[in-house]
């Protein structure tokens, strides 16, 4: 990462940012700015786990009077959407932002820890498919305006997997665990295998705990086991332990997951190919499995139609049903655009639908929300010859 950008490099990035600002403004997106620093306590838990883990936190003694940790802005969506909601959620709005974000990278990674984003948020739009198509095509226009060169697009739809998990018959607790671990594919796969195989032999302690939870005076019996193990210390209290013990006892009594159900989940999540074919395959798979996720698949179809109307060859767009499983923000349409000949670069752009996050940000219901951003530095790097490129 260059500490100072000057000369041609400076001019190129300023020009790219100005180009995107003009493009987004012309499309009706109002420019907004946000602070670089905010108090961690109020915002950091609103992020998904990946971004939360990458955020730069440090001790505060902030001017606002709080003594808690401060956080360097890891993205724009949370502060922008939260500020929108503070003035009422019941209105449509479009925002454009640009500036640096800060994310910790893994040791040894060459990915930048500070980089520019120029993006848009489309909130409260009445027609979800139209809003998604508009955001997608505007980002495509942005990349063309920056002369990004040949790009590869990947799309997904997390709403399909969630609809499938909701529609399949299973204990509510199991559904909840699968949804929670959806973002960690390896753990998700492990869980499905465990559900099919049935409960593993419990440890002696676990067996005692389950017996206590199933017996008379469960809270007292569980408390006795806990106090025998050690003094109660820390914030987590005995009733929280008892509640988990009861949940463990209930889960131990759940029936095994039918192999066909596990197969349907894994097969649906492995559907890849041109979006048009993927839609047909998902309709066939769910029909064979006698599970109805028609509304989710209809949304997928409506999006493809809206994209076609916007001039995109939507049926041919690459689709991967598992795409986006590392992007906890999103819950529906999701896409990413990379430089075709530069796999060494981070994605040039990406975005998707994140209605559910608006509820975490304070809305009393999930407000329609689609957003996406371009990484101008990556785009400029992609324009250079591969040998000369750096990022």
């Amino acid at each position: 990462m260059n500490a100072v950008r000057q000369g041609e490099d400076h001019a190129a990035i300023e020009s790219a940012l100005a180009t995107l600002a003009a493009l987004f403004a012309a499309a009706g997106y109002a420019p907004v700015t946000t602070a670089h620093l905010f108090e961690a306590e109020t915002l950091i838990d609103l992020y998904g786990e990946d971004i939360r883990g990458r955020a730069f936190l440090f001790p505060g003694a902030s001017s606002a009077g709080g003594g808690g940790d401060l956080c360097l802005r890891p993205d724009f969506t949370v502060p922008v959407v939260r500020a929108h909601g503070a003035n009422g959620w019941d209105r449509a709005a479009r925002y454009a932002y640009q500036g640096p974000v800060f994310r910790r990278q893994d040791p040894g990674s060459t990915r930048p820890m500070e980089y520019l984003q120029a993006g848009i948020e489309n909130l409260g739009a009445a027609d979800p498919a139209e809003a998604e198509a508009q955001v997608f095509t505007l980002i495509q226009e942005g990349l063309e305006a920056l002369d990004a060169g040949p790009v590869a697009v990947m799309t997904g739809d997390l709403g399909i997997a969630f609809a499938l998990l909701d529609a399949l018959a299973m204990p509510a607790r199991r559904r909840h665990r699968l949804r929670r671990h959806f973002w960690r594919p390896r753990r998700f796969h492990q869980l499905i295998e465990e559900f099919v195989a049935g409960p593993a032999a419990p440890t002696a302690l676990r067996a005692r705990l389950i017996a206590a939870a199933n017996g008379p005076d469960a809270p007292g019996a569980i408390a006795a086991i806990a106090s025998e193990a050690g003094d109660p210390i820390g914030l987590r209290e005995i009733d929280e332990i008892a509640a988990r013990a009861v949940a463990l006892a209930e889960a131990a009594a759940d029936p095994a997951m039918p192999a066909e159900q596990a197969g349907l989940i894994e097969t649906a999540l492995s559907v890849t190919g041109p979006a048009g074919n993927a839609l047909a395959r998902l309709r066939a798979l769910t029909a064979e499995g006698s599970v109805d996720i028609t509304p989710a698949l209809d949304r997928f179809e409506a999006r493809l139609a809206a994209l076609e109307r916007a001039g995109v060859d939507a049926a041919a767009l690459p689709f991967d049903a598992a795409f986006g499983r590392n992007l906890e923000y999103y819950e529906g349409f999701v896409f990413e655009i990379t430089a075709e000949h530069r796999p060494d670069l981070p994605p040039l752009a990406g975005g998707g639908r994140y209605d559910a996050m608006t509820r975490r940000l304070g809305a009393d219901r999930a407000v329609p929300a689609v957003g996406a951003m371009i990484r101008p530095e990556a785009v400029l790097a992609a324009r250079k010859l591969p040998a000369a490129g750096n990022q």
Partner: protein
Amino acid sequence: MTALTLGLPSKGRLQADTIGWFAARGIDIARTGDARQYAARARGIDGLEVVMLSAGEIPRELASGRIHLGVTGEDLIRERAPGWQDRIVLAAGLGFGHADLIVAVPAFWVDVETMADLDEVAEAFRARHGHGLRIATKYHNLTRAFFQSKGVADYRLADSQGATEAGPKNQSCEAIVDITSSGGTLRANHLKPLADGLILQSQATLCLSRAAEWGDGERAALARLAERLGVALTL
């Protein structure tokens, strides 16, 4: 003649054990000048210069190539030298300075025995207390990598540079990642290790820097040293 630079821990039990280990192989290491100076001399072999450094600095000196060899804990190499695999060779465990880096939780959490359990309670904890589980440690990199390998993501690191094991009792964290050489400290603080929470079994380790200057002279000196020590020293 070309000399290799060897960085050794500058104090404590680790220094004494390291000097003893070299002495047992016929290399006597003695400080030169007064005890506050961090220079030392090696007798019994030619072409070996010794510098005394804090054990925590040695990973960085190895990674940057300012020393050819160094002795420090494997945990410190893995924690403090990001991307160390390209630059540092863990050549030989020296058989002392044993310490396990482990994940520990309050012993009375009888519903939590594994990393998966820890992850499962994180959600309910967040709902009840308004924040995620706080894991106190000074081993941030090793903790992140280990938790990721176990599929545990719903937590926050809390920095702790000392008395980490008292954190849960003081309510400054829910769980800890720390070095333990016996279970005594854990028990005294009402903590227990998780069954699959062993992150690393560390010991004092003789390390080679790939980033240092390695000409013919240095390589010849390394071969002589390897023969004398009776360990393989391969770059």
